[in-house]
């Protein structure tokens, strides 16, 4: 009799252990997906940080009266690089501010026809535009994986395992409010 009880208890323990292992593996996989999606954004952010000094020095000679705009870009870049260590939420704020200053720089550059003839500036501008776009398209994917992961660690049954092994919540990479505005319509 005792032997059977022992066997049942042992069976339950083994079963529980298996369930915990399965849940744990599921969480690890989800967390890995978040990390992968983040590295996709991170690559683009770093690339942008590297490109900006080149652009600033390339246009500085042309834009003597726009030193303030250039200064803003340089400052915002430095802030964004510093925010890199503070996690996605803070970094998103700094990066959005950087996007803002870049947008005004591009707008001011429209006033300098000489710049439009400079092949180096044009290709730097194209590279910056594509990194900006790639960041915004990767952001959707990243936020979706974070939502999936955060939901998993906060709901039964994985919530018990998450507490045991210290799976913490992840930050979203919030979108730039200006980028979400409805685009203006133009035809012709």
């Amino acid at each position: 009799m005792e032997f059977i009880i022992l066997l049942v208890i042992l069976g339950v323990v083994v079963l529980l252990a298996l369930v915990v292992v399965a849940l744990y593996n599921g969480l690890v996989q989800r967390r890995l997906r978040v990390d992968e999606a983040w590295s996709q954004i991170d690559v683009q952010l770093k690339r942008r940080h590297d490109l900006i000094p080149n652009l600033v020095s390339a246009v500085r000679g042309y834009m003597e009266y726009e030193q303030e705009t250039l200064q803003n870009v340089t400052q915002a870049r430095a802030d964004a690089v510093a925010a890199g260590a503070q996690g996605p939420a803070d970094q998103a704020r700094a990066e959005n501010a950087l996007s803002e200053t870049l947008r005004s720089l591009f707008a001011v550059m429209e006033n300098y026809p000489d710049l439009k003839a400079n092949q180096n500036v044009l290709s730097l501008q194209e590279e910056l535009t594509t990194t900006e776009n790639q960041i915004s398209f990767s952001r959707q994917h990243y936020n979706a994986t974070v939502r999936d992961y955060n939901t998993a660690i906060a709901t039964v049954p994985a919530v018990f395992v998450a507490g045991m092994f210290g799976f913490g919540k992840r930050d979203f990479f919030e979108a730039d409010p200006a980028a979400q505005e409805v685009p203006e319509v133009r035809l012709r």
Partner: protein
Amino acid sequence: MATRTTFFQQQSSNRRRSLLLLVSVGLILGVLGFAAGFGTTGDPFGGLWFTGGAVILAALLASGSYFAGDRVVLAASQAKPVTEASHPQLMNVVREMTLAANVPMPRVYIIEDSAPNAFATGRDPEHASIAVTTGLLDKLDREELQGVIAHELGHVRNYDIRFMLLIGVLVGGVALLADMFLRYTFWFGGHRGGRRGGSGGGGGILQLVMIVLAVVLAIVAPIAARLVQMSVSRQREYLADATAVELTRNPAGLEGALWKIGTDREVLEVANRATQHLYFTNPIKKFEERASSVWATHPALADRIDRLRELHSAPPLDEGERATLARH
């Protein structure tokens, strides 16, 4: 959320349709082969031989188009592969859109032609190619190019490319085989039929019926196949436009591209009847007049633009703008 369901529905319905297409083309060819074979030899076993031949030919055509069709289409359009170094902006735009559509990077090709147009081909997103003309790159700005690339990647993601590849070759194949049977029945039908006709009156009538059936089928099958090609192609274009807006979140880009291409006077030299359904807009001019008819592969440009304008609640094109598009 609505677009998501449509996308998955479209994906599975495209897979289903591809299979249905293969089966029905096989059936049509089988019956055609049997009728032609029975009709000419006056012997049901002769019919079976023809059936076997037709079905094997169809299977060869289908697998050929499935695995090599994209290369054939690209070669026929004189498309050349593009590198990061030679066309950085094009490659950047394609990469951006693959991130948005969550598909692998396709191979990118360019066609030396001043008419602005583009197409996508391949058997699935892992084996996809996108080709654009030099005219498209010259005439469109970045946002408009993004709209066109997103439209093409929409075809890739929705598995339209597989279906269009199969249908192009199979429609051509049905026409080719029907033509072969027609000639064979015409030349040999009378001769052999006459010799065998003496063996029995009943067989002779049946044989005659088979010849008539073969002739009718050989005439009807290519027409029916082409009608299917046209109608499914039009719906796909609207859906790819909607997908492009979903991916770029910018209806104005695609709208501007459609307008510029619609008012362009150049004619794409390398396009023909076999590849017209693949393109972004129909490359064969004088097309707009027929756009509402059952033969058109694409919806009228004005209708495509109006649907995009609906998405961001802009008023539809007025009479003058429609007339401008129609004049070109």
